[in-house]
């Protein structure tokens, strides 16, 4: 991403840096077109970015429905990739350093291989050929997309020529944004992420030591003031142009923690579509200013408290994975190693737009079918007052289709009479790590799932099944390869019935 930042993920995706499974949410805050904001059956409690077509105006749904970062439903079916064509940055953030060459960590601002626009165009074709789910290509750094305008827009041009069905998006710190809104429109980019960590330069001076603007380096308060003004102007210009804006904010305890409520209010008023509050990553090993000064990141509880305060009566999207600037694949996975430059030509040659369209058609039907199945199960639960959390092992496609031992994360759903709602993901170590580390992985898996009543899997071995049962988590294989939401609700209904049976026996 752009800022030299180690944190401002594009839309965020893949795993957390140091393995801390801190939860994070994307909070939908407004519709891009204020006039149409409440059309389309959007009630105050269900309006959201991530949900179905009934939850937002049709023209917004059309924009977000296949974007894995803007729609939590889409993130089951569609994949994204970042192309690392933008290494330069025009500001310094205290949570970022300029080294971006570690293949072993997953966080914004980090890539393994810089690409030229030509290589990026080829890589996109190769990934599109290999991964039919690919719907979005973003430029998120490792510097700032708009601090490298020539490379960024050349890349967009090449992708648009060779694979016009792919959506383009970018992420920026906002400093150069007002200069490029016209070009962004020209390339039909309809999603832009701006990292906004403050709306008050007094706060900003503790986050940004300097910026480079108009051929001059500015420091301190003046730098923060200019950055703030440019971010606000850019946000307003994008909103006026009908481009969906996601605002990412890095939560830095003691610096902008209370202030982010004000940021939320301001960006919402200016028309941002989503707000994604992410925890500071400040591992000293990353060599960032904050890492070296011992600035801590937020605890999960602090993050959640702030998110809860900002969410108001709005629904949440919680599937951001804070991904790398060269991530490839479904959210939560990174297949970038399969697409290093030496392999691109051969793979790109197999690009077939018909197969990609066939996949989209299939997904369209599958999603309608899944929604109908969920609605049917939900109707059976009317009146139930309980809630439960259910963990699911899935490889994507909206189905329970992964073996317990192969899961590197579990998706967590809250089931109730209101339906099955995606509430987050839990990163775990593989249970099956090659044969003999199982014993070690299990305690951390149990810990990650401790608040879940059940775990729905395609299959599970005897030993982990016993351990889950002993920990009070019900392992369920009955819904292997079935739809996630409908299955979670069916399981929940059975549980309620079993309980009722038990109660009536006692009575």
């Amino acid at each position: 991403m752009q800022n030299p930042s180690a944190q401002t993920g594009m839309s965020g995706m893949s795993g957390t840096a140091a393995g801390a499974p801190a939860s994070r949410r994307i909070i939908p805050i407004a519709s891009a077109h204020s006039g149409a904001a409440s059309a389309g059956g959007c009630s105050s409690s269900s309006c959201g970015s991530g949900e179905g077509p009934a939850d937002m105006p049709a023209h917004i749904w059309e924009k977000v429905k296949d974007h894995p970062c803007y729609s939590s439903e889409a993130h089951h079916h569609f994949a994204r990739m970042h192309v690392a064509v933008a290494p330069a940055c025009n500001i310094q953030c205290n949570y970022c350093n300029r080294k971006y060459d570690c293949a072993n960590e997953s966080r914004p601002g980090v890539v393994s291989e810089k690409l030229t626009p030509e290589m990026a165009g080829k890589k996109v074709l190769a990934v599109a050929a290999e991964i039919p789910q690919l719907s979005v290509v973003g430029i998120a750094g490792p510097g700032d997309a708009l601090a490298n305008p020539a490379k960024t827009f050349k890349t967009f041009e090449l992708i648009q020529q060779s694979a016009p069905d792919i959506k383009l998006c970018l992420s920026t710190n906002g400093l150069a944004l007002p200069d490029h809104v016209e070009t962004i429109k020209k390339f039909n980019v309809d999603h832009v992420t701006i990292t906004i960590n403050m709306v008050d330069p007094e706060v900003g001076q503790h986050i940004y030591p300097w910026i480079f603007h108009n051929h001059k380096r500015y420091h301190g308060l003046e730098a923060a003031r200019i950055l703030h003004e440019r971010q606000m102007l850019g946000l307003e210009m994008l909103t006026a142009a009908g481009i969906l804006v996601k605002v990412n904010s890095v939560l830095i305890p003691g610096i902008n923690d209370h202030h982010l409520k004000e940021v939320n209010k301001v960006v919402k008023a200016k028309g941002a579509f989503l707000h994604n509050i992410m925890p500071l990553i400040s591992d000293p090993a990353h060599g960032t200013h904050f890492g070296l000064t011992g600035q801590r990141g937020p605890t999960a509880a602090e993050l959640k408290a702030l998110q809860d305060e900002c969410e108001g009566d709005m629904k949440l999207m919680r599937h951001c994975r804070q991904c790398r600037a060269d991530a490839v694949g479904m959210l939560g996975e990174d297949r970038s190693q399969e697409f290093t430059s030496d392999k691109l030509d051969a793979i790109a040659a197999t690009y077939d737009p018909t197969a990609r369209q066939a996949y989209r058609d299939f997904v369209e039907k599958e999603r309608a079918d899944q929604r109908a199945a969920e609605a049917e199960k939900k109707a059976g639960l009317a009146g139930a007052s309980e809630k439960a959390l259910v963990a699911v092992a899935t490889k994507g496609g909206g189905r329970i289709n992964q073996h317990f031992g192969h899961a590197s994360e579990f998706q967590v759903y809250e089931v109730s009479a209101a339906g099955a709602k995606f509430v987050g993901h839990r990163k775990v170590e593989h249970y099956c790590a090659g044969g003999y580390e199982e014993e070690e992985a299990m305690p951390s898996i149990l810990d990650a799932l401790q608040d879940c009543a059940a775990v729905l899997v395609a299959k599970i071995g005897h030993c982990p099944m016993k351990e889950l049962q002993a920990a009070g988590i019900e392992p369920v294989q009955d819904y292997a390869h079935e739809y996630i939401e409908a299955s979670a609700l069916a399981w929940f209904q059975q549980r309620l019935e079993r309980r009722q049976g038990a109660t009536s026996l006692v009575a």
Partner: protein
Amino acid sequence: MAYKINASACTACGACEQECPNDAIYEKNGLFAIKADGCTECIGHYDDPQCIAACPADCIVVDKSVPRYQA
């Protein structure tokens, strides 16, 4: 030439290259370098040398092996 790039600190981001008013910065073996006879220290162009102001790694320094540029 008056400036040079400290190769061990350069992250090869190219921020300097796109700012140089003299096109005196070029990529060499994956890193960037300044052409001695092209650099004017930005005198006559800007108040500050652009490569130094733009460099996120702060790795551009005065090259003492050559005389300072005289406008």
